[in-house]
């Protein structure tokens, strides 16, 4: 009786680990990347709407000036993200 339960627990643990692994991969390659683009686009659109409030708009998106520079570099370095940003900003 214990052995089947142990095997079931092990199987469940492996399933969970696999699911977590996939989730992390998606976050690294998908969700967080899209968030970076969305964030940059939101900043661009915010500054378009309120050009004199650029610093406040950065702060509203939890970005320091250095963080904003890093965001721009990160997006620019990734061809897919740069393309997505460029298209979204149209």
């Amino acid at each position: 009786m214990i052995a089947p339960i142990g095997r079931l627990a092990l199987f469940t643990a492996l399933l969970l680990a696999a699911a977590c692994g996939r989730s992390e991969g998606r976050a690294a390659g998908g969700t967080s990347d899209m968030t970076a683009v969305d964030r940059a686009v939101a900043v661009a659109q915010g500054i378009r709407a309120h050009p004199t409030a650029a610093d406040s708009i950065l702060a509203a998106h939890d970005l320091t000036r250095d963080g904003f520079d890093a965001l721009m570099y990160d997006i620019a370095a990734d061809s897919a993200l740069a393309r997505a940003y460029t298209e979204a900003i149209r």
Partner: protein
Amino acid sequence: MPRFLALAALLAAPLAQLGDSMPAILQALQLPALVTEARQAGVTDAMVRDLLDVLRRRGLPADEAVLVVREEVDAVHAGAPKDNFGAFVQRQLDAGHRGRALAEAIRAEHRARGIGHEQVRPPQHRDTTRPKGGQP
């Protein structure tokens, strides 16, 4: 190119409101679109990344990186070899140039090699975000 123009149009309204000033943040927002333009012009992704890495390691803020990348993209549009993308940047950085002086030095290097800039910038290209007269 159309995408870059769209970005330029997006930024045109705030720039018009700001007059001649060019906030660094507005300029920095162009970086992804500029490198996209470079890639679409045939510059390899590796070369784009290499240039960005150099600029980032040297601590150039994104708005200054835009000045540099713009010069390189213009040079490609003017007929400079694509495999030469960013080739002069390291040397000019080593010479201590930064900001507009860096962009001017890169432009001068291209000119010295017969790559002009005046004839390459299409009329609707960049002018909404590029300061006139080369002064900050």
